[in-house]
């Protein structure tokens, strides 16, 4: 086996990786900057965010604008491809695919971020109350959380979205967020419980720090790490879940809005005619989901105290 080299590598790593006097956060940041996986993820996310922020400036046309020169050539079995002024050609309704792809980054980011943030906020609230208060509040909250966790997540999202009278962007966000609430809650409660028994909390209690201050200032910051990692990963799954809901006909019903998941779903009937219409949004979703996943995994590794030396 290659034992000597491994040992040598470990020793070297120990020498230039001494984390003395550095906070976990600073240490994690330093390790992220050195990790090519993290950099790749961060670059993908940054490009995605930049495109969506400047989307109205980048897109030559509006998302709902149909063009006579495209509509003219649109017939059953034919959707015009790339041509002057329309680098990605037409979509199935004679609109500029290129503009729609760019503008869709915004809606996709919006759905992903809002669903994650709502899930995170409610999950954290539940997790903090359950983990910090304990007792019957903990029992009741965790009982309900367990029930929600016992339903396969997409099935839960489907039942929430399907039962609303009219599918819309809001119902998609609510459905995807709700799926993630119990996950965040469980995760945070677990690490809050571990904090509750720790020495520094005992010390703070002994010094007479008030309970809410202990929870917010001493327990929460130490317990939130895994939740942040999970949130990064959730950004990827939220986008994928939203796409799945669109595919099932539970997505945003507004035809004027462009969103990758919806574009992918509505392109399915035209796969024989012009597969690119499905391919573009699919690739966009895959790359962005991959970006969040790469960064999330790197963040998990960077925040893992076991990785500290």
């Amino acid at each position, binding site marked *: 086996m290659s034992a000597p080299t491994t040992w040598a590598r470990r020793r070297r790593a120990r020498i230039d990786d001494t984390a003395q006097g550095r906070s976990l956060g600073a240490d994690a940041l330093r390790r992220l900057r050195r990790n090519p996986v993290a950099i790749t993820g961060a670059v993908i996310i940054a490009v995605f965010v930049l495109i969506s922020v400047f989307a109205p400036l980048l897109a030559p046309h509006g998302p709902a604008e149909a063009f006579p020169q495209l509509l003219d050539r649109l017939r059953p079995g034919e959707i015009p491809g790339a041509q002057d002024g329309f680098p990605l050609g037409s979509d199935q309704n004679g609109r500029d695919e290129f503009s729609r792809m760019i503008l869709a980054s915004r809606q996709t980011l919006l759905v992903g971020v809002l669903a994650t943030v709502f899930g995170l906020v409610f999950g954290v609230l539940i997790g903090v109350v359950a983990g910090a208060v304990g007792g019957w509040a903990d029992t009741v909250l965790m009982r309900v959380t367990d029930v929600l966790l016992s339903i396969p997540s997409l*099935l839960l999202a489907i039942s929430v979205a399907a*039962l609303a*009278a009219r599918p819309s962007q809001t119902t998609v966000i609510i459905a995807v967020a709700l799926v993630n609430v119990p996950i965040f809650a469980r995760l945070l409660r677990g690490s809050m419980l571990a904090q509750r028994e720790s020495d520094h909390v005992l010390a703070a209690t002994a010094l007479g720090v008030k309970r809410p201050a202990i929870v917010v200032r001493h327990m929460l910051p130490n317990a939130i790490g895994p939740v942040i990692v999970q949130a990064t990963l959730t950004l990827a799954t939220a986008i994928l879940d939203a796409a799945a809901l669109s595919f099932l006909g539970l997505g945003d019903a507004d035809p004027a809005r462009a969103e990758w998941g919806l574009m992918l779903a509505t392109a399915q009937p035209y796969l024989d005619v012009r597969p690119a219409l499905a391919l573009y949004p699919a690739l966009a979703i895959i790359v962005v989901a991959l970006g969040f996943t790469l960064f999330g995994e790197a963040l998990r590794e960077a925040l893992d105290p076991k990785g500290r030396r």
Partner: protein
Amino acid sequence: MLRFVVRRLVQVVPTLLILSVLLFAWLRSLPGGPAGALLGDKATPEGIAALNRTLGLDQPIPIQYLRYLGRALSGDFGASLISGDPVLAEIGRALPATIELSVTALLIAVLAGIPLGYLAARYRGRPWDNVTILGTLVGVAVPVFFLGYVLKQIFAVELNLFPPSGRLAVDLDATRVTGFAILDGLLTREFDASADAIAHLVLPAIALATIPLAVIVRITRASVLDVLDSDFVRTANAKGLAPGTVRGRHVLRNALLPVSTTIGLQTGLLLAGAVLTEKVFNWGGLGTLIAEGIERRDYPRLQAIVLLGALIYVIVNLLVDLSYALIDPRVRLR
């Protein structure tokens, strides 16, 4: 052991009760209630009132719930609004198709995932490991239904290797015994039907298997790495055991514990993924019932399937816990 099983089964009851209350409450809290959701854009106050009377929804909500519960306990989950058949009968007809698909997908994921994950761990940091990890990350990022369409387009439409959709060729006229297409072919000695069923199964099962496969590979890799670092493996190596013995009896056996937990958790994903895959391949199982139920707002059907999905999930995870005792004799079930 028996007490453990009984206690766990008893715990399932409140879970399902709470779930049914939540579903019921959510359904009734919608604007216009179930009738409003059912009528959609065509909803008028009179229409809603009329439909409420027919469906018994004009009763007080607790009474409605108790009625639903009472009937559900005797196996009556109401009639599907689409077909008019009892929901339970519909589910019974569709369940074998979904089980066939999910079990095959799970088998693919487990049989390919554990060796792949093990090899990645063994060759940690080498190109093989990196390629495997990247593959798992991409696998999770691809929308399942898109993957299904790509497989279908390439292997069914372009290359014509597999049938594009359905469970059996229509002209085959296979006898239905259990509803499991492959098994039926074997039982009735219609072996061509079994072969046909397998050919139909390949593409949807692969599409459905990707995400569980990626997850199992990663967990196996992480767990094998953990075990490889442990003291008892070093001891086993130091005392001169054959490398094969160490790998099989010490590393793999210990590494499989977290993996089996993951496999249990994947059943939920499989059920959800089946909804998407079945729609792509027109599979005709539970997923198709759900997709149809969504389009037509068939809430008795959706309610029953979600409850059933949760029940299956809980039971599978109970079986997983029981399997611990088989894999690891240190585990005592209490």
